């Protein structure tokens, strides 16, 4: 162990730049102020008609200026904004970045507007894919093509911000943001690079998206007339998550690299833990074993004990099942200490930003340590007796926070946990 290596002799990974966009606003500062004030970004959806849908609210980001109102258009605009912000913040600016890009990519595909656009251009063939294919043959659609390629956003960011090598687009569903960070950490630890740019973005709130998640009974259908009250993590009356949009970017580098260039350091990523679950496509193992393993592995990797975790940034989606499972798993790892460890869910205010959630929550975690303020879990009016946690209810709280555990879980058995630290040594 030297000044620049951790308890396992690996390079210490620090965070030197942050960027964020959520339904609460653009930029880390605007978001942080709103979070600490307990503001909700959830609102009635205006972007498209929700007439007749059970869920008519979301945390859409409506203030960007995308080249096209579509999932890829909005996702790129947000990713561009947060990447620019994080690079500016880190001091790299627009002069090129000395490492690779790891991008948690949203699901993109042709949308209904594109299908109608194609159908409007020809009368050839049966209405449907035959006609859309005929239309494509008659009129080349370069821009439409580029937008719906799954690698496009990362390719464009890599080109614009001059990151090194082949950028990586990844998905682990709702754990993707954490996975992007995990990939950056692993690359730095094995000596592939001294710096990594980790970005996540999701602007995929569409009518079809609301319907699809609705069919899986994942979204809340309550509080449609009081949208800001709909996301209620850990409350007894929680009934599903609220679909949201957002993006975050974090600049990672070795402590040595950051020190040598005199960069401002927010803190370190001390540990990562992961364990896949083979129980079900959308549900966690009833015994919580994979989540327990992921949490334990992250804490162990960080070289600390559960008693050194000062605050937990929960996955806390506000679904009946997730929040109960998250509590049970934490209890298994922390024992009764969990009842006195503050834990809050940013999702109570920004909703579930899906692909971007883990990265956005990482940005807010570094602000929590820097400012010494824990953002609240809002809408906590009816405690769930089965989840006896200190959820920092409704109002932010001053606290000296040196270590944070951040949880991310996703469909497909994805579980990724991260431990952040304030001090570099």
């Amino acid at each position: 162990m030297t000044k620049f290596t951790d308890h396992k002799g690996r390079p210490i990974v620090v965070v030197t730049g942050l960027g964020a966009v959520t339904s609460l606003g653009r930029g880390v500062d605007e978001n942080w102020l709103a979070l600490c004030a307990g503001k909700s970004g959830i609102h009635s959806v205006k972007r498209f008609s929700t007439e007749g849908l059970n869920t008519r609210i979301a945390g859409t980001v409506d203030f960007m200026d995308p080249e096209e109102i579509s999932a890829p258009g909005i996702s790129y605009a947000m990713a561009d904004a947060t990447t620019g912000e994080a690079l500016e913040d880190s001091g790299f600016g627009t002069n090129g970045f000395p490492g690779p890009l790891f991008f948690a990519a949203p699901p993109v595909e042709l949308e209904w507007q594109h299908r109608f656009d194609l159908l409007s251009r020809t009368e050839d063939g049966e209405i449907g894919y035959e006609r859309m294919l005929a239309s494509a043959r008659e009129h080349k659609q370069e821009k439409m093509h580029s937008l719906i390629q799954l690698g496009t956003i990362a390719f464009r960011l890599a080109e614009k911000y001059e990151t090194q090598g082949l950028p990586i687009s990844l998905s682990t569903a709702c754990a993707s943001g954490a996975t992007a960070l995990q990939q950056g950490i692993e690359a730095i630890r094995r000596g592939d690079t001294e710096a990594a740019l980790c970005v996540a973005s999701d602007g995929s709130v569409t009518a079809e998206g609301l319907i699809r998640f609705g069919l899986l009974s994942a979204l809340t259908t309550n509080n449609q007339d009081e949208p800001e009250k709909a996301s209620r993590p850990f409350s007894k009356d929680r009934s599903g998550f609220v679909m949201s949009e957002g993006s975050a970017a974090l600049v990672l580098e070795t402590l040595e690299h950051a020190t040598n260039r005199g960069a401002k350091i927010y803190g370190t990523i001390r540990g990562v833990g992961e364990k896949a679950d083979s129980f079900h496509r959308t549900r966690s193992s009833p015994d919580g074993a994979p989540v327990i393993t992921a949490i334990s592995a992250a804490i162990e990797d960080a070289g600390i004990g559960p008693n050194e975790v000062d605050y937990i940034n929960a996955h806390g989606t506000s679904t009946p099942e997730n929040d109960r499972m998250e509590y049970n798993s934490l209890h298994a790892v922390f024992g009764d200490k969990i009842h006195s460890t503050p834990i809050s869910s940013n999702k109570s205010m920004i909703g579930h930003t899906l692909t971007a959630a883990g990265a956005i929550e990482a940005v807010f975690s570094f602000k929590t340590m820097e400012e010494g303020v824990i953002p609240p879990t809002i809408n906590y009016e009816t405690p769930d007796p089965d989840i006896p946690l200190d959820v920092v209810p409704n109002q932010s709280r001053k606290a000296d926070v040196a270590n944070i555990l951040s949880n991310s879980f996703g469909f497909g058995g994805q579980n990724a946990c991260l431990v952040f630290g304030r001090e570099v040594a």
Partner: protein
Amino acid sequence: MSSDQKEVLITGIGFVSCFGEGADQNWQILGGATAPEPVINMETVAPYGVHPLPEMDWALQIPRKDQRQMENWQRLGTYAAGLALDDAGIKENEELISSMDLVVAAGGGERDVETDEAILKDALASNDREQLILDRLRTDLRPTLFLAQLSNLLAGNISIVHKVTGSSRTYMGEETAGVTVIQNAVSRIASGQSSHMLVGGSYNADRPDALLPHALNHYLYTGGTEGVHGRQANGGGMRMGSVGAFLVLEEAEHAKARGAKSYAKLDGVSSDLGKRDGEKGQERLEGMFDKLGGTPDAVMSGATGVSEATAYEMDFLASKLGGDVPVRAFQTMIGQPLEATFPAGVALAALALKNNGFYAPFEAQEKPATSEVSSIMVTSIGHHCGEGFALLSKS
């Protein structure tokens, strides 16, 4: 690779192509004294040809209750993953399976074509399109279909069906996803971050919704059944192919300790993204080649047939390796499997090395191998962008 890096072996292959299932079956057909006639379906999505799925009995690898939760791209990948685990001899080894790291290259899944088409027909006739779509999606969409559309649910299904649960990551980005999968796995094993991994991808070509994105930018070949080189005189283009390609990659000592067989050694992987024109473009490939740390006796090329990308690669190979090194553009035979391209190329190269042979020319433009092939370079020059090379040698 530096000296403290560990050796990476390929100890299992699961392969399904239009020629059938199983690594051995594909080697028997593709590795014969003369190349077979490729299997091409010119009917289902005319005027585009596709290399179709072979007849499959999914139940051999996937319980029926799980099959119902998947669409074909996931069945194909989950099936090929099962074949790879069987081939590596670890399918029933709970300890190895539950600690195995999984990395998958995946696209955006499949849509319910029938539902899409029914909605489009009615919406065109309706005076409130937006409302009609909302109403119909609510009643017509199957809940489980969503799970066939999430990129990471191929990995999720592999975890559920085969119990591979060490870690699970999914990469996206067309052909570059496959490159990243192999590169990431080799880096993790070589650096000691993992000891054994299941990696690969799958693609189901035989669907109009799968072809449409590529048709938009005129990337698909609309001529006949020509191979990658033969298409060049006719404007070029790619022909999609259904492929499932999974590999078990293992640290050499780990493989030795359990007495595993080995197909080949993965000596190096390199990748890049950037402009392809001019000297700069060739310099980038030059830089990637140098990182491999050796010169190959033969090349398994993932060339797609799209003219710019194919010429870019062939110019480089000719100038770097000279005209005598045999190059096989395997998409002539199995089609373009997008995310699965690079894993498929690595699998085909490993099969040749293990069998002490190489492939007969797939087209008249390709030269026969005249000397022994002990090392093979695998290429994937993305039809749109992104490049990857790997170097394999006999183990």
